[in-house]
């Protein structure tokens, strides 16, 4: 996906005018919040599990080189070919080379956020390989030629009415009715043969387990098993931060992930891939490749952004973010949207290219509250603003306004005089009414809301007057 975060404001205008998007987002985020709350209330050990998960990630990240080596050794012993990719370009080159060498005409794909990050779709198309998305939501957005708008529910921006229209228009056999089960049945019919005839499968991984060399994929549709088992070649692409030391650690995360993501106790399918087909196995790929991708992750290690590498991609921060709920994922103009994306996108690209993202946040803290591994997202967003300030990337208007504020805020006498003047001015602007509807330099506010007319005199003026006069304060 091409990053267009620099056109954030333009995207926002379009998103806010899109009534279907509003419906789709409010239906989904409301439901996900309610479901999450319920399963977490029922999970007595939630707090302890969250602490433990955070500690496991901190430990793994502190010894990442050690666990990466352990993972590589064990994965090789399982028969995997392990590749290292420093950049998205390198990752794409490795994947397309494997496909070309296998003579692949079609590739099925599951769990694809990292694939989006490194631009697999375009690379496959350039290499003449037909790409088939097997996740229902990914199938929908492939038909619509949209990028994903959420990391767990990539088609969150679409209403089921829009999906019905899409299937009517583009499926070989249109769905019988527009009921959701019939729509699902239609996608199943459309995809089944493609699952079975693909040459290569490409999957992401939710976790990489160092002590067994396994890659773990969770789905609710069973599409990972259908994707990764029949083709003769299976390629796993994963970020290096996906490591956990062992099986017991993975299980801590598995209990948190489904709860945080979709409000379920566990996902329907959890598969541990342990290498290619062995002699005597009924099925499985003949060749099994793992591509470990860095793409700026090692630069985040040891920096004030390291905690972002703890992210398990559950999407809870998005589901609870008021900004995400208002504008949807596409507005962020990047692979990863919402609060986690606003931290990750500048780290994976540049502060400048993603200038708006750390700023478009009310710092309300709900994302941190619901994060299953307790990533301090608001603090990190604020730290990115401090980096922007140091790099002189703040907007000229902000700089000007803040400069004036700073000048008076550090001079109490002048500040109180200025406040008194402002109160006087605002009372004039109220034109005798109790509310102000027009005010210079507050256009963004009064466009949508009234301002109260201030009382006669600031607190400081009234307080001084009453004290000096020795009167009882109002």
């Amino acid at each position, binding site marked *: 996906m091409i990053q267009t975060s620099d056109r954030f404001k333009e995207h926002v205008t379009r998103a806010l005018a899109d009534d279907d998007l509003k419906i789709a987002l409010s239906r989904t985020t409301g439901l996900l919040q309610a479901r999450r709350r319920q399963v977490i209330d029922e999970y007595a050990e939630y707090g302890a599990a969250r602490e433990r998960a955070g500690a496991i990630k901190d430990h793994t990240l502190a010894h990442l080189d050690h666990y990466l080596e352990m993972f590589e050794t064990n994965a090789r012993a399982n028969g995997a070919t392990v590749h290292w990719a420093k950049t998205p370009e390198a990752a794409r080159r490795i994947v397309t080379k494997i496909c070309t060498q296998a003579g692949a005409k079609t590739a099925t794909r599951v769990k694809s956020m990292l694939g989006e990050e490194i631009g697999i779709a375009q690379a496959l198309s350039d290499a003449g390989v037909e790409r088939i998305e097997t996740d229902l939501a990914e199938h929908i957005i492939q038909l619509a030629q949209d990028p994903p708008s959420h990391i767990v529910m990539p088609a969150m921006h679409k209403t089921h009415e829009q999906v019905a229209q899409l299937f009517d228009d583009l499926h070989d056999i249109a769905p019988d009715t527009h009921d959701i089960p019939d729509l699902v049945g239609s996608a199943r019919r459309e995809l089944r043969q493609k699952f079975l005839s693909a040459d290569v499968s490409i999957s992401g991984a939710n976790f990489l387990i160092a002590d067994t060399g396994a890659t773990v994929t969770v789905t609710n549709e069973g599409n990972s098993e259908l994707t990764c088992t029949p083709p003769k070649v299976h390629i796993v692409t994963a970020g290096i931060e996906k490591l956990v030391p062992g099986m017991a650690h993975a299980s801590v995360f598995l209990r948190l992930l489904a709860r945080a993501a979709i409000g379920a106790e566990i996902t329907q399918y959890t598969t541990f891939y342990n290498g290619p087909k062995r002699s005597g196995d009924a099925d499985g790929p003949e060749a099994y490749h793992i591509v470990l991708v860095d793409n700026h992750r090692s630069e985040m290690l040891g920096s004030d952004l390291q905690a972002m590498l703890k992210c398990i991609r559950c999407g809870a921060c998005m589901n609870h973010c008021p900004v995400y709920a208002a504008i949807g994922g596409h507005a962020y103009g990047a692979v990863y949207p919402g609060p986690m994306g606003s931290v990750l996108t500048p780290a994976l690209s540049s502060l400048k290219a993603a200038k708006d993202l750390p700023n478009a946040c009310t710092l309300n803290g*709900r994302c941190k509250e619901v994060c299953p591994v307790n990533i301090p997202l608001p603090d990190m967003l604020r730290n990115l603003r401090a980096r922007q300030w140091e790099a002189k990337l703040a907007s000229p208007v902000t700089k000007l306004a803040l400069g004036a504020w700073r000048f008076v805020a550090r001079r109490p006498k002048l500040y109180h005089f200025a406040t008194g003047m402002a109160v006087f001015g605002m009372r004039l602007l109220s034109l005798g009414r109790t509310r102000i509807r027009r005010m210079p330099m507050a256009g963004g506010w009064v466009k949508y809301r009234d301002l*109260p007319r201030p009382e006669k005199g600031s607190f400081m003026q009234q307080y001084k007057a009453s004290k000096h006069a020795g009167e009882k304060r109002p």
Partner: protein
Amino acid sequence: MTEHTASDRPRVGLFVTCLVDAMRPNIGFATLKLLEAAGCDVEVPSAQTCCGQPAFNSGDDATTRAIAKQIIESFARYDYVVVPSGSCASMIRTHFGEVFGDEPDWIERQSALSAKTWEVLSFLSDVIGYHPEDVRYDGLATYHDSCSGLRDLGVRDQPRAMLANVDGLQMTPLKDNDACCGFGGTFCVKYPDISNAIVAEKTRNIVETKADTLLAGDLGCLMNMAGKLSREGHKVKAFHTVEVLAGMAGDGGICGEGS
């Protein structure tokens, strides 16, 4: 309530937030009244300006540090610093420390100040144990939990418990009471369209409660919600919780008729 002698009365420095100072002094005087009723000696140091949040949230750490020093100096002599805002109280209590990286003396003075800084309702409730009596407000009210107070300072049950003592006041729950109202300080100015979409959702929920009064503990959020309700033509009166508790919620409310 405990009787205090002149000497053991807690000395409180009242931090009047910039919005309260300019836009609604009534909140400052209501806070003063409650603190005095609770047996505190209250002073309002005149060297205070703003808590520094605009600079902090814009990433301007040098200015934040300068303002923090100003506040540390003007409030050092009190037993407590009390603020009628969860957001500004949290700025002093939880965020000041983040800008003093390399000045050990100031870090020490800052942590001393942070430790004695309280949001007004949690101070009255958790520190002093004061509950106002014989207060009356006739109405059906709903309560919005402002984010910083709720998440940084744990202000959730205290205002509700104190409001339960008010005669004539009925409370009704607000859907998504813990979701941001879209104010976010500089956010509402930098991204007015997104802020509007968020506050419109909030006012929809407020109107659905059928409450005639909206209460919260932060003037920024209140001005945002009340300003939107007023623009949409709804007759919901908005007050800071302390205005009701001090028996000073007499007029039409924030952005209401007669304010």
